[in-house]
């Protein structure tokens, strides 16, 4: 075996199924400020709707926004259907607008937050209406690497898997290029959720540390590695585990929050290794925007 051979998967056995959501409307509770760590309250945009000027590949830090969701944020109004959307969608799946002025336009799933995040070509955004339906060709749930069955894959589409530059190392470990490594002690909000639902925020409250580690140079769509993070079932601290994740939304002013990190792969036993490659971003993998 050499690392030049493609990694075998069960891709041929995966089922492709339609799931759908509609373009969401930003909602604000009366008087509901977002608070800085010192208590200062602000009102900032970022979540829901069509975000016209933030896309995968753009900066994750420095927006005058909070939890900025790049591209189009869709959700299903029925709770059970919405969970199906969350659990069946995979990053890199193709999307299609099925109602409204942009009907027929094709896009790409770039993230999962409380809504599913979909990127479209530049000329599509102006024609999108709140409530337009977007359908996803969902495929990826159940994906397994034949020779690495112990490495759990979550929400990786075959299209993303093929573009991530994953190789087999001589020592039997899997190798994944990532844009950045994060220290485990800054992993925050999301620890209370199961690891199949949305993301975990990194905690960006120590601004000096963010600058020192270069974390503040993170881009939306960056591939991320975290040591001692076991995300197989929930999010545990486990010595030696490695998780590979994806930056899906922007920074936050709130204590315990920051850019959102969506789990893509995890191995509690340390079978994953990684190296830093600043180009490891889904914008490059899928030719998104002008940062590709």
């Amino acid at each position, binding site marked *: 075996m050499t690392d030049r051979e493609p990694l075998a998967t069960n891709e041929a056995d995966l089922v492709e199924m339609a799931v759908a959501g509609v373009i969401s409307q930003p909602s604000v509770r009366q008087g509901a400020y977002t608070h800085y760590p010192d208590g200062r309250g602000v009102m900032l945009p970022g979540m829901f709707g069509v975000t016209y000027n933030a896309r995968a590949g753009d900066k994750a830090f420095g927006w005058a926004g909070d939890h900025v969701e790049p591209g189009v944020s869709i959700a299903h109004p029925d709770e059970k259907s919405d969970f199906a959307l969350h659990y069946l969608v995979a990053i890199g799946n193709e999307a299609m607008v099925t109602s409204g002025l942009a009907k027929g336009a094709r896009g790409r799933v770039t993230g999962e937050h409380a809504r599913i995040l979909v990127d479209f070509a530049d000329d599509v955004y102006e024609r999108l209406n709140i409530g337009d339906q977007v359908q996803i060709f969902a495929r990826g749930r159940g994906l397994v690497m034949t020779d690495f069955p112990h490495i759990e894959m979550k929400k990786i589409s075959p299209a993303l898997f093929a573009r991530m530059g994953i190789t087999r190392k001589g020592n039997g470990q899997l190798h994944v290029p990532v844009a950045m490594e994060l220290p485990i002690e800054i992993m925050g*909000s999301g620890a*209370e959720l199961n690891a199949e639902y949305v993301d975990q925020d990194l905690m960006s409250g120590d601004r000096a540390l963010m600058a020192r580690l270069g974390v503040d140079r993170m881009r939306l769509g960056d591939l991320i590695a975290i040591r001692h993070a076991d995300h197989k079932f929930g999010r545990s601290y486990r010595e030696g585990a490695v998780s590979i994740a994806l930056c899906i939304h922007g920074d936050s002013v709130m204590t315990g929050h920051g850019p959102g990190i969506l789990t893509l792969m995890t191995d509690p036993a340390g079978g994953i290794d990684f190296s830093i490659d600043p180009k490891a971003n889904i914008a490059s993998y899928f030719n998104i925007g002008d940062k590709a």
Partner: protein
Amino acid sequence: MTLATNEADLVAVSVGGAIAHPGFPGLPAEPYRLASDGTPFLLPTYGSIVYNVSVGDRAFGWAADCIHPGVSIKRADDNGNRGLNIFACVGNTATVMTGAAQGSKGAVTGKSGRFSEQVIVHFPREVRKKMAIGDQIVIKSLGTGFEITGHAGISFKGMSPALFKALPQKVENGVLKIGVVATVPAHLVGAGAGLTSEGGSLHMQSTDKAELRKAGLDQLRLGDVVAIADTDSRYNHGYLPGAMSIAVIGQSDGPRAGYGPGMTVVMTAPDGQLGSFSAPGTNLVTLLALEP
């Protein structure tokens, strides 16, 4: 040493709740939760009257998931329940208003957070035997707004003046230091990070038992007073080097990822204004003179 406080200015307000029934998800009758290794488990969990687990007992090793010692109360409506959860302070007196235990006195010993939102109240074992699910309990809440003169950098959360006065404490070089049983390092902070610090709980990571032993946390008892390193709990809980929070162990360990023993945070400071010293045995049983 007695520190000057604004106790005389605090307002005592009633907050009420009823003893909460345990709950499980509905049809298709899938009763299992997942342990951090993915094993499905079915065990008693938060809520209700717990007859044989009390403050002072061990926090680890119960065949249970985040069990609340004593009695757990909540209100049916969300806003009222939030009032109960926020204003109830650890050490406040609770009185049974209805049922066979009417007139019995107890004390608030902790709170639970997102997904359960209950207040944990200690009553003597003999009283618990007489209680019924649904019994109404009123807490004379006192503590919200508490400050100590000359220590403006320290914030109090759900701390009764009675508990504060009983805590081992000393001031050294202007830093208020609290006597604690152990210190939780930042990388072992789990569920609750990024969530509100007004009420609720912050849980330890307990998947990696060796790491818990290394930090001296594996022998903790319910009601123990602990410090949480590098954690800012002023507005949400989050990582911040130099910050510290002081908490009491409110509920037991559990098998889920991120859900080790729950901590009810009562004090916090962002930048070295708060410290700790080792004081083995510092526990609510003695601090609040709880009747067994």
